[in-house]
Structure formats: structure tokens, C-alpha cells
């Protein structure tokens, strides 16, 4: 379990190094995650080695607590912009939801017609 956890830490560090060195504007851990997905596609038997991944994911909400507490301190950054910030957040969320459902339905319909 420790070895698997160490591998996750090493991968995220390697991803950060790679993104920094090559100036890739994608978070290093995301690059590392993609690399791990590709690795597991070739060697599915290695899933057991990364067993600590599921524990880390289960504990993930706890990891956000300090960020949310910090957000309260960042409210001063918002200044008087709390209402437009919340409105922007709402508009973006609804747009994402509606666009996904609409395009997925449209594509399903187009696929069924072409068959």
C-alpha cells in the first residue's frame, strides 16, 4: 500500500516537472493521471498495486476543507463582487448542464438515424 501511495506521489511530482519543463498549460497531476490510465490499459494487472488510490479518493472531501476555510478569508478579494460572482457561477453551471444534455441527446439521435 505504501509503495502504491509513493508511486502516486512520484507520478504527480513527475507530471509537475514535465508540465513545467515543457511549458504545458495543463496541471501536472492531470498529465500523470492520463499517463496512468494509458499504463493500466496496457497492464490491467497493476490495478491492485495502486489500491491506496481508492482510499485517497474516499478521503478527498476532507482535503478540500482547508481550501473552503481559506475561501472565507478570500471573500475580501471579492470585495463587492459577491453577487456577480455567484451569478456567473450559476450561469456557467446551468450552461454546462444544458449543453451536455442537449449535445449528448442530439448525437444519440444522429447516430440512431445513420444506422
Amino acid at each position, binding site marked *: 500500500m505504501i509503495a502504491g501511495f509513493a508511486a502516486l506521489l512520484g507520478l504527480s511530482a513527475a507530471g509537475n516537472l514535465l508540465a513545467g519543463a515543457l511549458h504545458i498549460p495543463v496541471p501536472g497531476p492531470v498529465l500523470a*493521471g492520463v499517463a496512468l490510465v494509458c499504463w493500466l490499459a496496457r497492464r490491467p494487472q497493476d490495478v491492485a498495486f495502486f489500491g491506496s488510490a481508492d482510499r485517497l479518493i474516499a478521503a478527498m472531501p476532507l482535503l478540500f476543507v482547508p481550501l473552503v476555510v481559506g475561501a472565507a478569508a478570500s471573500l475580501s478579494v471579492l470585495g463587492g463582487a459577491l453577487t456577480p460572482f455567484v451569478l456567473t457561477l450559476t450561469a456557467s453551471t446551468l450552461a454546462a448542464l444544458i449543453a451536455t444534455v442537449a449535445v449528448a441527446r442530439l448525437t444519440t439521435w444522429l447516430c440512431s438515424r445513420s444506422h
Partner: protein
Amino acid sequence: MALFALALTLVSYELARRYVRGLPPVLTSAAVLIVVLPLLHVTHADYATGTWVLVALLSPAVVALALPFHRRRAALAASALPTVAGVVAGAAAGIAVAVLAGHALGLSDLLVRAVAPRAATTPIAVAIAGTLGANAHLTAAAALVGGVLCALLAPLALRLARDPHAAGLGLGLAAHGFGTARAAQLDETAGASAATAMALNGLATALLAPLLVPLLLR
């Protein structure tokens, strides 16, 4: 003092997880800490020093998301085209509307950058905020609060979409973990589709936000 802040965080999270129903423990425990920390004379700087290890663990947690994604690859292959098209459209719409609406409402560039990646699952949204040079605290709060509120729309989305696969994709994309959990309670297909969309959107938003945000902010 540093260990005290960490202990306080763990205790409040565990108490919230066990005894508070209806709201996610991350939000209730954070609300309690926001009230309690000043009473105990713990400064924001002390608190951040004490809890940095939790935030640092978010990076390996993002890598760990590769495993659930790996397990979902068969479901993804079954309806690859509608799934990928829906996710790319939803991710792009979420980012574009955040930038355009934020600008129209007079938000600063810095705040726009903080909202733009919010549809991605929270750890990835936080990582993207770092890439975009935004305030990661605000992005985390926006991702979590937006996710919780959007998950409330789950029954309505399922009814209006009349297609559990499409509704699930939308909920997983726009409300990540919260939307996925709610969709899974309501409909098995929707829950599976939501999990797929959440995983794919982490990647889609990570790729699209650094491209679209600077482009639209010009």
C-alpha cells in the same frame, strides 16, 4: 499550533460526516471552522501552515482518479460518440459562459479565471486554477457550492432530458461528485453516465480552460 489546526480540521470533518445530514461534511465542517478558528485565536496563516499537508495530498488524489476512470472504460466505449461530444460541448459551454457572463457582470479577470474551471471535479479545478493564476480558494468554493446546488436539479434534469444517459452525463459534468452521487440514487444508468462524464470532464476542462480563457478574455 500547527498540529492543533490539523486535529481541529479532522475532528470537525468527522463529526460533520457522522452527525450532520443533508449537507456535505466538507461544507458544514468548513462553516464550523470559519466560526470557531477566530474564537480560538487561530490566525489564517497558522491554519494554512497546519493544514498544508491536506492540500498537498490533492495532487496524488488527482492521479488516483485514473483508477475509477480505468474501471469505467468499458461503459465509455459502449456509447463513446454521444458521451465525448456531450462532455466536450458541456465543458466548453461552462468555461465560455463563465468568461462571457463574468465579463458582462463586471468581474475582474482574476475572478473570471477563478470561476472558469469550476465544472471540473474539485481537485482538478483547483489544479487548473493554479495553471490559470487564479485564487485556488475561490475556485474550490465555487466548485463545491456549484456542485451542491446543481445536484439539487437532478430530478428535474432527469425528467426534462427524457434520457437517463444524457441527464447523467450533464449532472456528472456540471456537478461532479455531488451530481454523480445524486444521479446514482435516482437512476442506475444516470449514475454510471455521471461517473463517466465527471472523469472525462476533468480532462476536458484541464485541456480547454488554458486555451479558451486567455482567448475569450482578450
